[in-house]
């Protein structure tokens, strides 16, 4: 009787390995919980602050998204605060799209060279160089932009040199390494037998690259570009240093304008928590956050499409 009980207890007791496994599961689960809590906390905080502009200060959402004057300190003829975010939203999108358009051909070209045309040299020289570029802090890019790109733009196109064009130049260099290395990964993941089959059918190397490899890698390349756009959209410091930060609708590429991030970084220290001016900035932050979520969703969608 006693011995069977003992046996039962022995059998039912968790082994050391099982306990270790439970412990590990607990640790990784709590790490996950912590990260989820942080993300939910940030989104909740930004949302609650950003929505206050519309609930507490009674700014209409439509006005916020379509009006062109950004002057939170004063009120217009109807007594509504002037918080039209359209110039910043347009500025952000313009600069993001332009820099992606400029960067994409260079990035894909480099990736093709690294993977298809000269894999040896590519791996030895280009790979480390692009990785190095990723690591340069954005303030350095901004500083170079301010002391090289802005005077150059001024000399060539006139104006003050500050504007979307200078911002595009700086962002182009900033997102290039990201897009390049992700494009290279996309090309690498194209199976070798695709190329072999194409060459065996008598296609030249260029035909193989253009008609087979690039086509097969399209979803990966798209992801790379969208990833670069997400980075460009969220970049604050470097852009702020060269864009001029004028909350005006961009009338030309060399006129000073602003982005969501540049207005945020210049303004946040000069406003008081809980005031309209501060809430309006949080609303801009909310727009930024929502946009980066949209970029993430696009990346997801492309990835899913690519799998099929």
């Amino acid at each position: 009787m006693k011995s069977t009980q003992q046996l039962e207890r022995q059998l039912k007791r968790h082994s050391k390995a099982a306990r270790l496994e439970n412990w590990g599961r607990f640790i990784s689960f709590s790490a996950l919980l912590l990260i989820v809590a942080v993300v939910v906390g940030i989104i909740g905080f930004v949302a609650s602050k950003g929505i206050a502009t519309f609930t507490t200060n009674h700014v209409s959402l439509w006005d916020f998204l379509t009006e062109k004057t950004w002057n939170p300190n004063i009120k217009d003829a109807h007594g509504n605060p002037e918080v039209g975010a359209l110039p910043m939203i347009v500025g952000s999108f313009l600069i993001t799209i332009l820099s992606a358009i400029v960067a994409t051909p260079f990035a894909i070209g480099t990736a093709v060279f690294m993977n298809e045309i000269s894999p040896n040299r590519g791996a030895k020289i280009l790979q480390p160089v692009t990785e190095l570029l990723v690591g340069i802090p954005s303030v350095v890019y901004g500083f170079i932009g301010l002391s090289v790109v802005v005077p150059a733009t001024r000399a060539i196109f006139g104006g003050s040199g500050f504007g979307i064009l200078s911002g595009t130049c700086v962002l182009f260099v900033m997102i290039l390494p990201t897009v390049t290395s992700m494009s290279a990964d996309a090309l690498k993941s194209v199976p070798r037998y695709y190329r072999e089959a194409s060459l065996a059918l008598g296609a030249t190397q260029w035909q193989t690259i253009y008609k087979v490899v690039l086509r097969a890698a399209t979803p990966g390349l798209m992801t790379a570009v969208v990833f670069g756009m997400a980075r460009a959209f969220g970049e604050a410091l470097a852009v702020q240093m060269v864009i001029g930060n004028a909350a005006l609708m961009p009338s030309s590429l060399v006129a000073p304008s602003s982005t969501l991030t540049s207005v945020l970084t210049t303004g946040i220290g000069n406003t008081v928590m809980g005031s309209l001016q501060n809430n309006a900035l949080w609303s801009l932050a909310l727009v930024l956050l929502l946009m980066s979520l949209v970029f993430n969703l696009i990346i997801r969608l492309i990835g899913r499409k690519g799998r099929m």
Partner: protein
Amino acid sequence: MSRKRWVQGFIVIALVALGGYAYQTRQVSHARESITAVGSTALQPLVEAAGEQYTGEHLGTFVNVQGGGTGTGLSQIQEGAVQIGNSDLFAGEQKGIKANQLVDHRVAVVGITPIVNKKVGVTNLSTAQLIKVFTGEVKNWREVGGANLPIVLINRAQGSGTRATFEQFGLQGRRSKTAQEQDSSGMVRSIVATTPGAISYVAFSYVDKTVQDLAINHVEPTEDNVTTNDWKIWSYEHLYTKGQPKGLTAKFIHYVQSAAVQRTLVRQLGYLSPDQMTVDRDVHGQVTKIGGE
């Protein structure tokens, strides 16, 4: 396995040691006195320097100084999150601040001058001309007697104390046209120095050889002219406390306002001392002569 145990043991010991160290330092910093001052970047150099001197002379105290801007300073002191809020403005001028809860301690006076790029060829503007330049009525320097260059406005960020002072006293309460905005005086100076046709405004201490300061109505931007209010664009620098200051906060503010600091540090760093002023200005901009012949 034994190696793994050893690593685990090491991590546990390290964690305990770090925790213990943190606990120890927490106690120490509580035993000593420390205060935090946050806010205006224009006032930051003075408070930092005074803080260093003060803690050097009074061991066991610590004055922690942070920037962040006038708005941050005032909102933090209103919430009681810090002991001192540094501000370029009267608390009553900042939106969202309940000024009656805060106590003002004036520690310095800052003169602000318009600066232009050297190629502009203008050294004096009338107030009317200055207003026209900043409201966009005049678009070329030729129209105010300068070179044939388009005017490039550079503003400080909205809500900046320097900008508020400049618009109130330099532009007589008018708002500048929306234009480029920069969030620091150093940045403004370097952009004005390199951009043909640029005009902006900075505190006297930021003026150097790379830019040209402007006289207004033929009054030169000098400290002497500020003390008599002949040069109208100036502001007090304030240390705000929530309620009357106590303990180290009171001692430190008293120290900054003391004659020793006012005569040396304040002037060395390019500020004026409130003691030098022959006029007094209140929150509404009303100027009164300080009594006495």
